[in-house]
């Protein structure tokens, strides 16, 4: 399902520093790192390490070659840190984010608020394919969804998880699966592991 060709679904690619940029901020969801993942990033970002800041979110790992990383407990702290940067960010700066899709879009949304445009942002999907699902009916959000149909955390309706994706909400659309025939719920399968 990650490879759905629906046009609203973002495409992600490996992070690669923009050599023309003035400053570089790398934000990594530590739990999604594969063995050797940090070393790979250190290789990729070696040309810009003098102007690189690295934020590691979650586990406090050592990150040789990525400057002196700053450790943040959770994505909410990233959002706060972006909003509170005293000197702000410049038009020549770039933000690189790696992690699960909900993580990527939480950070991207916060970055947009402080002025980062899409051209200043790179997103790389890593870790689980679990989805954040937005309920079309109650507008509640259900996190860490791994199944094709999921009970809404807000209203309890069984939602069919569509591929249609909203960057603004960082979420996939969920629509009541048995609205036409109440109780007719298809087999629930693990599809976004």
């Amino acid at each position: 399902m990650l490879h759905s060709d629906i046009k609203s679904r973002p495409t992600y690619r490996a992070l690669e520093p923009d050599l023309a940029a003035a400053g570089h901020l790398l934000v990594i969801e530590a739990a999604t790192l594969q063995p050797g993942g940090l070393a790979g990033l250190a290789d990729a970002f070696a040309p810009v390490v003098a102007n690189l800041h690295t934020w590691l979110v979650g586990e406090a790992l050592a990150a040789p070659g990525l400057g002196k990383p700053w450790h943040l407990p959770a994505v909410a702290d990233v959002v706060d840190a972006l909003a509170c940067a005293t000197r702000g960010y410049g038009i020549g700066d770039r933000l690189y984010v790696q992690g699960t899709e909900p993580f990527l879009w939480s950070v991207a949304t916060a970055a947009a608020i402080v002025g980062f445009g899409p051209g200043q942002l790179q997103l790389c999907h890593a870790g689980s394919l679990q989805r954040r699902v937005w309920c079309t009916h109650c507008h509640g959000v259900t996190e860490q969804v791994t199944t094709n149909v999921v009970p809404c955390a807000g209203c309890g309706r069984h939602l069919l998880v569509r591929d249609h994706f909203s960057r603004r909400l960082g979420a996939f659309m969920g629509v009541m699966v048995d609205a036409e025939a109440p109780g007719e719920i298809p087999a629930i399968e693990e599809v976004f592991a």
Partner: protein
Amino acid sequence: MIGDTLLLQVAAVTDIAPGLRHLRLVAADGGKLPPAAAGAHVQFVLEGAARTWRNAYSLVSRPGARDAWEIIVRRVPASRGGSAFIHEQLEVGDRLLAGWPGNLFAPVRIARHHLMIAGGIGITPFLSYLAEFGFTGAGHALHVCCRESEKDVFAPWLGSSPAVAFHWDADGHRLDIPALLASQPAGTHLYVCGPAAMNDEVMAAAAVAGWPASHVHCEHFGSALFGGEAFRAFLVRSGIELEVAEDESLLDAIERAGVAAPCLCRGGACGVCVTPLLEGEAEHRDHFLSADERAAGRLIMPCVSRARAGRLVLDL
């Protein structure tokens, strides 16, 4: 608010400096003009004795003005002649045809800050920008690069805003473009309008400073909205030889000859007017044909496309 051309009348002509003429134009029927946006331009049909020019000028009137449009025309020494016509021939009371406003240089309204760099007469689109930002309160700065003598010509048009700075070629007065571009916050959009060399310099400096291309905007003047060189076409099935004038489309010429050609959007998108091309090389301007179809050279959309060279032979 539907229409494509308007008949205007020259209401006032003012020479604001040697080689700079300001025109005030009203609707010839005394009615209202369509409102226009910041950055809008209008294409004017200038009927000279020997030939006709179609020149586009930025509107410098306040955005949304419906009583009159204003333009400032610089006389271009080696021009196609349209600006010379305006400077030498056009008089108060003269009438001229104009298109509805177009806009290829609108401000980006999601910007958190607008940085404008003008070179000389390139300030014209920014006069309407300043009016809009004054109304909406959007953050902005305008840097005008001109000759020192031009400063007093432009200053009255710019008001007394602290957001406007003049620069000229003398020690202590030159604009340090790299320094300016390096110090801008995220969310800034850059707009540049001036001589080609200055535009290129600013664009290059922005790339060096790491500006994303999506945040850098340059006014491209002189790109034809329609028309081009005159050419000939032959309609095989109708047995008609056509002369396509520089200011009409191939489709216009086909229709003028009384040949019914299917068409819908007249803008190169719908594909309804696609016609087999039997001979000749097309200059494709449509959005419909694929790269392969263009390369094959056997189809043309006469609503927008023209001849690249020589005569076109159509199966029509």
